[in-house]
């Protein structure tokens, strides 16, 4: 298992659009994807789970990946969380 902590910079937080983009990307990896915020952990492949974390702008989120392709997943999914892939 490897992990990283990211501060959400997107103006409107991790809202429906980036969340769905995140889930779509996460689905492509074999490894387990988990997101943790304020001690609550959810499945990163579940959009309902991610939405209920209500990651507002400035919130701190831990991304945990565990599985054969975890390294690539951490890099790709971390970028989405940071909003580095596309605008909002």
């Amino acid at each position: 298992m490897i992990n990283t902590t990211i501060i959400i910079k997107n103006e409107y937080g991790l809202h429906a659009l980036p969340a769905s983009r995140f889930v779509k990307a996460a689905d492509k990896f074999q490894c387990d994807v988990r997101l943790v915020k304020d001690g609550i952990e959810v499945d990163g492949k579940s959009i309902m789970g991610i939405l209920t974390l209500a990651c507002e702008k400035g919130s701190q989120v831990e991304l945990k990946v565990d599985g054969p392709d975890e390294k690539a997943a951490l890099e790709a999914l971390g970028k989405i969380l940071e909003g580095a892939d596309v605008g909002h």
Partner: protein
Amino acid sequence: MDTKELVVHGIPVSKGIAIGKVFIYHVITPSILESEIEDVETEIERFHGAVAKTKKDLLLLKKRIGEEMPLDLSHFLEAQLMMLDDAKFNSEVVEGIKRERKNCEHIYHKLITTFTGKLLVSKDAYFRERSYDIWDIANRLLRNLLGEEHVTILEAPKGSIVVTNDLPPSEAALINPKQILGVASEMGGVTSHTAIMAKALEIPAVLGVHDLLAKMIEGETIVLDGERGLVIKNPKESRIRNYEVEIERLEEHKRSLIPAAQLPPKTKDGKYIDISANIEFLSEVSSAIRYGAEGVGLFRTEFLYLAKRGLPTEEEQFQIYYSLAKRMKHKTVIIRTFDLGGDKVRAGYREANPFLGWRAIRVCLDDVGFFKTQLRAILRAAVLGNVKVMFPMIATIEELRKAKIILDRTKQDLTREKVEFGADLAVGIMVETPSAALMSEHLARECDFFSIGSNDLTQYTLAVDRGNERIHRLFDHFHPAVLKLVAMVADAAHKYNIMVGVCGEIASDILGLPLLVGLGVDELSMTPSVIPEAKYILRGIKVSDAVEIARQCLTLRTPLEVRRFLSRSIAKTFPDLLTAPSV
């Protein structure tokens, strides 16, 4: 079946007459019962079946929107589809059915309640609002489980008249005039979003019809009379024939005014009055030009938010503002920043007194990020040189100053990022609160133009909510109290040499045109379809006469006296005017 003709009355908010078939839009939350089940496997199958059915419905809807609507709803539907497909969530439902041996509606409803409950406690309004999106899809699925239909007006067949208890703004944004001939509603008044939409789309609308749904049957033919405010069930043959004649006559009248549309908007004695269009959609630009608009005096931006059910990005907004400015060429385009709140609430946000609450500029000043995103898009679109920005519902001078500071900071950001923008963007305010009108001499020194929003100004001056059917008759923009404020604002603007326009309902009411010209208004911004008639009237009057009309109106005591006086003076100058001015 009762086939007796039935005429019901409501408030006519958008002119025109339609003969069409009833399409009922009535959303009620499905009621969920809890019950024990025998066969767990069948129950799980039922759940999967409902998920599949709901997905199919959504995909169909998405396809139709893609083909017919210019709105960016597909992202919203995309996210809803993913929620349906959420394997983790769905397996929790299945586990719940197995564990509790209860019906799947109950289990699903309970889980959704828990999930959305987590969102409702978020500090961030955006996430609180998203719980309603989840409920939207959840209710769709629950209705499929219960065998109830889920209706959205996107599903209305061609030739429909939407009959509803109340149309939420997000649903009103989906009205496609190619399919929908008109709207009749139990709720809503002249200034409601439904009214604005109907006028923009030039379809008739009658709102505030008491007990409407109980009287109407899906699919039956009705007459919707937006001229008189009538909904007629089981219309007699003779009635339909008369209406068909009237529809033809109205069309003819419209056509006869088209030549006047392209003439310069000048009074008989040569004073130029800017006659512009109020619009909300890019699709209205061509009709505004066809009707002879000198510019866009009010571009409402709320629909960008409402149709998307969320926050439009800077790029999405920029594309719309830029193509609007480009298509209007050298003509002025006034973009009003988000006027959310009141009856156009942010999804899920409720308060006791919305019109006196967190709305318009107050929302923007509190949510600076949201505001700046819009200002960036407007500033960038202003490179073409014809864009102006306008702040809604300014009640105090501090609000104007704060908004201008945020605008300046936004300009600094853009400069730093080396993004091109229109640096000398003119800044105006809506004068729509009595306090702004009373303080207009001070406000005039700190902005570049005024636009009087007569609807809100009337509502706040007379303390009347026009959407309230018990008191809507007390609402009248020709009330002398309102006219005195308009006169005061016009005088203040001229004293400090700034332009003063009117973009409220009163500007689209041709009865008031000589009066407004006489009060010294420089610009009238109105529903595009009214422009030809307004130009026709303007070109037939003299400023000196208009000034005298205004002077006399200011001495009257009641709106009825004003209306009678205006009707008489219009009839004197235009004895052949075909459509009687609305009273």
